[in-house]
């Protein structure tokens, strides 16, 4: 288990970052990470592949997806517009903070599968092959989703300059 501690502990901040970017809520993101770590501990010796990082992100991602499904089936939206703004960019200057919030808000408007690819590749530095493993899709699909995600985010950023930055209309259900 020492081995596990050494390999997994340094990755927890990245897991939190990914969970936070998906959930946009500190408490539910950390709950997800905790759940992920508990599963990792119980399955550590059943892990077949060497790459711990991709394995952990796979567990976390699957938990996030089932969370989204549950929320969707309850007709709830993911808590995008209830984000506590203080959760992001606390260390940054105020205007920098607004810019950061703005891009995260725009990111949140992307479809969930595109958002996941973009975060895994561009923020978490997973290889395309590892991202494919995490998402359970072929590498070709990773590339096409990545392309769509970037294109769409670019349109959001370029077209959305005039839109209010801290009001989000992401409610899918009601």
């Amino acid at each position, binding site marked *: 288990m020492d081995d596990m501690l050494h390999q997994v*502990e340094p990755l927890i901040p990245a897991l939190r970052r990914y969970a936070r970017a998906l959930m946009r809520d500190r408490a539910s993101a950390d709950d997800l990470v905790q759940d992920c770590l*508990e599963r990792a501990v119980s399955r550590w010796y059943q892990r077949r592949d060497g790459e711990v990082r991709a394995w952990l992100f796979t567990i976390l991602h699957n938990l996030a997806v089932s969370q989204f499904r549950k929320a969707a089936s309850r007709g709830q939206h993911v808590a995008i517009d209830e984000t506590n703004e203080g959760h992001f960019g606390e*260390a940054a200057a105020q205007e920098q903070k607004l810019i950061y919030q703005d891009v995260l808000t725009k990111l949140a408007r992307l479809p969930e599968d595109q958002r996941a690819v973009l975060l895994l590749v561009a923020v978490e530095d997973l290889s395309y092959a590892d991202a494919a493993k995490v998402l359970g899709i072929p590498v070709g699909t990773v590339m096409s989703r990545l392309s769509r995600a970037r294109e769409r985010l670019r349109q959001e950023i370029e077209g959305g300059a005039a839109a209010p930055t801290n009001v989000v209309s992401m409610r899918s259900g009601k």
Partner: protein
Amino acid sequence: MNHRPITEDDLHAYVDQALAPERRGEVAAYLDDHPEVAERITAFAGQRDLLRAALAPVAEEPLPAALNLAHIIESRRRRPSRFGWAIAAMLLLSIGGAGGWIMHGALQTSPGGLVALAQEATASYDVYAPDHVRPVEMRASDTAQLVQWVSGRLHQPVKVPDLATSGYRLMGGRLVATTHGPAAMFMYDDDHGSRIVVLTRPMNGTDEDAPMTPQAKGDVAGFAWADSGIGYSLVGQAPAESLRAVANEVRKQARAI
């Protein structure tokens, strides 16, 4: 010069800094010649930087207590196990070499006893450990069913040894045939892919209680013993002393029923 055509994938890999230097140079040259593509790629790179910067503070926050991994591991360890511990265990860790266990010590009592058990373990190891397709019939993820299966066939409660503390994780197991009836075989590997096998079966009246006895052949070492009518054997290529520690762990768990 004959360049491979630039693909959309290349452009993304350029943004993600995932290209080999040579290809990176080719893409850069292409972008120099195609300003409208370059504009798009610059926007993508900007997004990437912005997202990374926006999310960086999250990874710098101190971890809350609930995410303290040492605590999570500790609370898991305290959870009682659901099965009784009765194991027939032979850990066979060896490379090929058709057999010939040399048993040291005083147990050459009968060919039906520990000697036979060790030979059976070797035979199973030789067949299954080098198998890259299906070394085990039931994987570790189906441990509960595996335990149920072999316990039923051995008419003994069998529990899979947990060798995590010794650095070996369970791959799975199977029932194997021996001239003394069915035996349960469990296979493990460590982080380097070295496999060990644990084989266990009832001793059927011979060597019902036998002390742990070392065995060795070439670079293959192992141990066999029996407790209350159940025989165990463990073999591997690791140094005998480290295998002894693993064997002791198996015996300890088997006795803690």
